[in-house]
């Protein structure tokens, strides 16, 4: 039992904005103070701020592609400060692809208590769960790649939306995943089949005769019909290409009011001619998102420095390999997905990279409604999640931002709106974009807030004049009611829960699935689904419809 007293509480979900409140914790949940007895430990948070634990809605921390990046880049680990073994914790390495134990501890030490991997091919779901099992402290889960699934594309071509919905439900349950993920819908299949990519959402995928538009609309509708806690999570077509804002806008319009989350929207907000220089088209896209409550985004903020581009977008990986000339990993996954990995360094003096950096910040500063934008670096694609405190300072401290703007490519920055934007985020708004909003968008009712019944995931920060320092080293982090971090050190090593959904489906589709597997897969249908032995601490999140 814990009693956190004297702290200024920021709990936007419950309308608490910097008031001194008592937060009482019992059996892993937040409870009314009256439920505590004399044995409760009291934490005096005088002069400190108390927030819900951070929630990362879009990160790459586990599974086949993350591990391929770890294997490919020993130099990336070597450059970074290692994570030493202690009497209670495991050792590990950092860099843009930290080892699993280091990932869990590092999130916790930043005050983050929940994170989702955004792209797992179902065939690699077992692998992702095994890694998450070795990712301590945080609650976790992953999104299941479906935007290039060949069964889904065949259903769409045949107009069999009901069968497809059952398949989506089955696949989520088989993978023990959390949400429907689309990555370059249709485009990855084009790449796998020897073409290069689709160019618009109305390009046709050869061999399947469907368009990205059909896939986007079909899966967004299926996610809604199944009542999934999180809507379709979309990595739109043409990521990273000059002029792609039109594709992004077309994607949003194609949804016609259906709920959807647009991932790492920074990478999709580029003007300019294909092959030419990027420019910012954030203003046009923000206007659309501001006007459509059914849409949410996360940012995919770019941070200057060395990192790894890692994506289910196979053709993007090849494109980046061509641009950077650096080593390239590609893995095509039968019937399901693709993968591309390339090391990348974002440079202040680069016109392109400066524009990308500014675009992310423009999104954050131009969105009216903080409840529909979540902070992300698309770790590690824009940069490491360890950069969140730096990004928070850029948002909260106008002078710091101006100073940063002076250090980047002057020509590029002058072509964006960033230098004119004076907005400073409040603590309440930071609490929204790092906790309350991602939890709400994920449909996690007990996360991202400090109301009674919420999971007792709490971060207490000691205030520093420098917001980056404040957010980089929480004073205390509580996970599921236990004090895990104190003064930056892990005091207890615990295993968090795996969050998954398992919607009902019509078992009548199974005979066809068996044939599908026998014909095209190399693994037996009966050996495909992930069993509960891979989720030793699981929480099945309810679906609301179906």
């Amino acid at each position, binding site marked *: 039992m814990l009693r956190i007293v004297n702290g200024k509480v920021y709990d936007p979900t419950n309308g608490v904005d910097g008031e001194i409140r008592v937060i009482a914790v019992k059996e892993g949940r937040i409870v009314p103070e009256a439920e505590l007895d004399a044995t409760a430990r009291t934490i005096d948070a005088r002069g400190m701020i108390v927030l819900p634990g951070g929630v990362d809605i879009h990160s790459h921390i*586990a599974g086949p592609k*993350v*591990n*391929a990046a*770890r*294997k*490919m*880049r*020993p*130099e990336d*680990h*070597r450059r970074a400060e*290692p*994570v*030493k*073994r202690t009497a209670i914790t*495991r*050792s*590990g*390495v950092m*860099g843009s*692809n*930290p*080892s*699993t*134990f280091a990932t869990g501890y590092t999130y916790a030490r930043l005050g983050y208590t929940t994170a989702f991997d955004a792209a797992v091919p179902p*065939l*690699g779901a*077992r*692998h992702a769960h*095994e*890694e998450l099992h*070795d990712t301590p402290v945080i609650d976790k889960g992953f999104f299941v790649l479906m935007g290039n699934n*060949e069964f889904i594309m065949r259903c769409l071509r045949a107009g069999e939306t009901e069968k497809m919905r059952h398949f989506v439900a089955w696949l989520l349950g088989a993978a023990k995943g959390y949400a429907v993920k689309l990555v370059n819908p249709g485009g990855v299949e084009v790449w*796998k*089949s*020897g073409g290069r990519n689709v160019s618009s959402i109305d390009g046709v995928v050869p*061999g399947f005769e469907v368009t990205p538009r059909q896939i986007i609309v079909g899966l967004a509708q299926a996610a809604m019909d199944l009542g999934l806690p999180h809507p379709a999570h979309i990595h739109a077509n043409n990521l990273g290409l000059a002029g792609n804002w039109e594709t992004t806008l077309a994607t949003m319009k194609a949804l016609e009011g259906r709920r959807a989350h647009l991932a790492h929207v920074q990478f999709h907000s580029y003007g300019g001619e294909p092959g030419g220089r990027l420019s910012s088209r954030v203003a046009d896209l923000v206007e659309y998102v501001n006007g459509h409550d059914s849409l949410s985004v996360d940012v995919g903020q770019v941070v200057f420095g060395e990192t790894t581009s890692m994506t289910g977008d196979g053709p993007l990986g*090849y494109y980046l*390999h061509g641009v950077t000339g650096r*080593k*390239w*990993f*590609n*893995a*095509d*996954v*039968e*019937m399901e997905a693709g993968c591309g*990995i*390339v090391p990348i360094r974002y440079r202040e003096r680069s016109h392109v990279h400066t524009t990308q950096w500014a675009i992310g910040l423009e999104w954050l500063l131009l969105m009216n409604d903080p409840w529909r934008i979540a902070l992300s670096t698309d770790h590690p694609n824009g940069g490491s999640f360890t950069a969140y405190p730096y990004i928070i300072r850029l948002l909260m401290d106008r002078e710091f931002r101006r100073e940063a703007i002076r250090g980047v490519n002057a020509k590029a920055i002058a072509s964006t709106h960033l230098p004119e934007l004076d907005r400073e985020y409040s603590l309440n708004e930071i609490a929204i974009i790092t906790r309350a909003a991602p939890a709400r968008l994920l449909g996690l009712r007990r996360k991202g807030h400090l109301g009674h019944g919420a999971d007792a995931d709490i971060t207490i920060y000691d205030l520093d004049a420098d917001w980056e320092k404040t957010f980089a080293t929480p004073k205390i982090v509580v996970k599921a009611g236990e004090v895990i971090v104190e003064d930056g050190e892990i005091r207890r090593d615990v295993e968090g829960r795996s969050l998954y959904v398992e919607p009902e489906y019509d078992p009548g589709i199974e005979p066809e699935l068996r044939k599908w597997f026998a*014909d*095209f*897969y*190399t*693994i*037996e249908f*009966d*050996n495909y689904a992930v*069993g509960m032995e891979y989720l030793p601490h699981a929480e099945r999140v309810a679906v609301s419809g179906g």
Partner: protein
Amino acid sequence: MEGEVRVIEHATCTFCGCVCDDIDLTVEGNRITKAKNACVLGKAWFFEYPTEESRPEAMIGGVPATTAEGIEEAARILTRARYPVVYGLSDTTVEAQRVAVEIADLIGGCLDTTTSVCHGPSGIAFQGVGEATCSLGEIKNRADMVIFWGGNPAESHPRHFTKYSVMPKGMFVPNGRKDRYVVLVDVRKTLSARAADLFIQVKPSKDFELLWALRALVKGVEVDERIEAETGVSLATLKELVERMKRAKFGVFLFGMGLSMTRGKHYNAAAILTLARDLNQHTRFVAKPMRGHGNVTGADNVVAWATGYPFGVNFGRGYPRFNPGEFTTVDLLARGEADAALIVSADPVANFPQSAIEHLKRIPTIVLDPQASETAKVARVAFTTAIYGINVPGTVYRMDDVPIRLRPALPSRYPSDEEVLKGIAKRVRELRREALSA
């Protein structure tokens, strides 16, 4: 049990890197009597596993002991050691591998797997140049050109041809074998040549030169006629091969230890990886090492996710460092460096160089193995463990990194590797705590 007949459907064979999961096992009494779909190696694996239950659970210094006594002695050895090595791991479950990694971390030792003596150079090449690859089903469904290089899958991975790479009908190759052009490149004409449309015999130790010439031709660089004298393969043959590769819709190189463990080692592997990469300027091409042991790919994955590096890791400074040549087992044994060894499901005494074996015999060694291996015979502590896939459930990674669940057919009176390792880890932790508080 006598007379009772059971069938375990969709069981997984862990003998080689194919990890076929479509085996139907018939169990009569305490024996597997049928293994439907299994190849000759798989049948041997399922029928000829050690059934003798009279072996002691453990041996300490050649004297029978209980598992608990073995754990005590093993923990004592590992706690006292100043430079221990944890080695093997390729023929056990991921669940056991995870605990072995934890032990190496706890004791600050070296951690290395049989990867360092098979496709370690391919892993190093991957770190240098990347890798364009795919799951085996992509080969089944799309590959119209398959090039085996430096391996003999007909004898090492017998079902690879029929299940994944040569024969199967796939979505975009509906006629199976007829839709594929198959090439074998090797230093001698093995049984696998029968499956190929074209056999190219390269001079021993000239793989790199041949691959580099192909890269040049793919890039449009002229290659001298003297390549034939160098490699044994004519320029005309190479040019024709390159044209065919460019015309293929989806091509794949499947390469064996004939590349990774001969002159040039990781240079050879890097050459084939870059050749596959370069061909993507013309069409789709991928490359994949033919991994041998049942779960060597799992070992790579577990070691990588826990430490950031795939093999050859040392925890001596309290965190993982990677240095093949320094922390790889053959090297550190041959230099006489390790002062204790924990060997899980591998038999270095049967296949390491003599200098490494000599040192291994000098130091206290702990072995976990279902059989009385050569290494078990010289071990200070030898545990008899149950067999993964036959007695023990768990997870195994196929050569293409696809994880597959095991369906054991028979119980065993022996503990699993995971159970023994967990016992050792627990006891090591206790002994360290006692030492700290003393």
